[in-house]
């Protein structure tokens, strides 16, 4: 489809954009033999995505505790793309099949917190987390737009 040079440049644009425009930290590229191109993962400055059902669980837990729960940001996957590209459902399916829901490095650490009875909402950060990738679409003027793509039927955050 595209030359490796092109992909590297694309990744770099997205990586820089995440780091310097959106203040992401721990931004890294992730290579894997069954991936069509390297993915990026990193930690946004604030929570980027809360599943509507997770929100319900959090509100319930907050009510029980009587104090608000701090929403720590989660490490997210990012797929760098160029606007001129075309992807088929088959390619997206293969991509989702190749990745874990939680990017590498953080899974173990988060798992430690999975204790206590009021931790239902915590499951959303581990086993209950669905596969999602941030589509970072780059145009030649260096505009980058970010859209979530979820694997499967996921209800919208606002409705």
């Amino acid at each position, binding site marked *: 489809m595209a030359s490796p040079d092109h992909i590297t440049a694309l990744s770099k644009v997205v990586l820089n954009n995440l780091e310097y425009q*959106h203040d992401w930290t721990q931004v890294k590229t992730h290579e894997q033999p069954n991936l069509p191109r390297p993915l990026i993962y990193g930690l*946004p400055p604030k929570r*980027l*995505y809360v599943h509507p059902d997770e929100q319900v669980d959090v509100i319930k837990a907050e009510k029980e505790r009587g104090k608000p729960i701090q929403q720590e940001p989660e490490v997210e996957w990012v797929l760098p*793309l*160029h*606007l*001129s*590209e*075309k*992807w*088929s*459902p*088959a390619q*997206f*399916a293969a991509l*989702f099949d190749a990745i874990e829901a939680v990017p590498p490095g953080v899974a173990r650490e988060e798992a430690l917190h999975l204790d206590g009875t009021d931790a239902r909402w915590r499951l959303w950060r581990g086993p209950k987390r669905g596969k999602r990738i*941030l*589509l970072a*679409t780059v145009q030649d003027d260096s505009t980058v*737009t*970010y*859209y*979530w*793509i*979820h*694997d*499967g*039927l*996921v*209800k*919208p*955050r*606002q*409705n």
Partner: protein
Amino acid sequence: MDATVPERRVRISRIAGRYLIFDIEDVVYIRRHHGICAVLTGTMPQNPTQNLFLGLPVELHSEEAKLLVDKGVGYIADELTDHLSRLSIMDGNLRKAYLQHIKQQRRNAQQAFEEEKAKIQAKHQAKRKAAAKPNPTVTTNPEEASAIAESGPSLFDPSMSPNPAKETRPKETLPPSITPTTSAHLLPIPSNPVSTAVDPSSSSYPLYKYLNSRGYYTTPGLRFGGDYSVYPGDPFRYHAHHMANSYGWDEEIPMLDLVMSGRLGTAVKKSFLFGAEKPGKEVGGAAKEEGGHGEVRVFCIEWAGM
């Protein structure tokens, strides 16, 4: 969808390539038990340019018709050949029964008219009593007017004066003539109807089936810019959650389409859902042709807010 679904075979009439349902019971049944709303298309005969508050018949998409046939709860009757063939084999008994049925309908209609008339009379009389100077007018309500018009001879009956309060019961008239709205009683439903096949025109059938099997209702998606609007339950109760498009498994989607649809979906508080059927392992080549048997993968796109 649930265990207590009543046994029923929905008659889907294929007329000029469209799939229509004329029986209100069937319409209720497929909506309640099979998650199919379809689209009301009928206008009133008096108002053919009507485009709001439409009524029977209900028009099904070809994928909806196919789903009903595949589930075994509906069958497709090709009305043109069906009517001709069954009318030609009609015997005397059937004819008699049909005439009897028409007569009964006429009597029912007359009873309804009379009840309606009595109600109006009572109303006017009450008004007359209430007002010092009685000045009742002829009913101009189109519904009542048409009801009177349809009652045939009684319209010209001299006993029907412009002042309904004075009006006496019209002399014994013939029951009003009626135009049957369906031919259901003319052509009794065979005990084991054979369905003709649905045209395999819809490539979005696998996605449609996938959504329907998960309890989602769909309506045509034009108003939100997709193939379908997808509701998590009956559209009377819920807002749509997704706008959905169906693609081929290897169909290449321009990135701009995804961004555009994602943006559009977010703007109307929905997510953009797209899906495709993974072509199954070909078993004798039949599976591929039919569709709706392979695994369907769907993806949802929303704006990330950054």
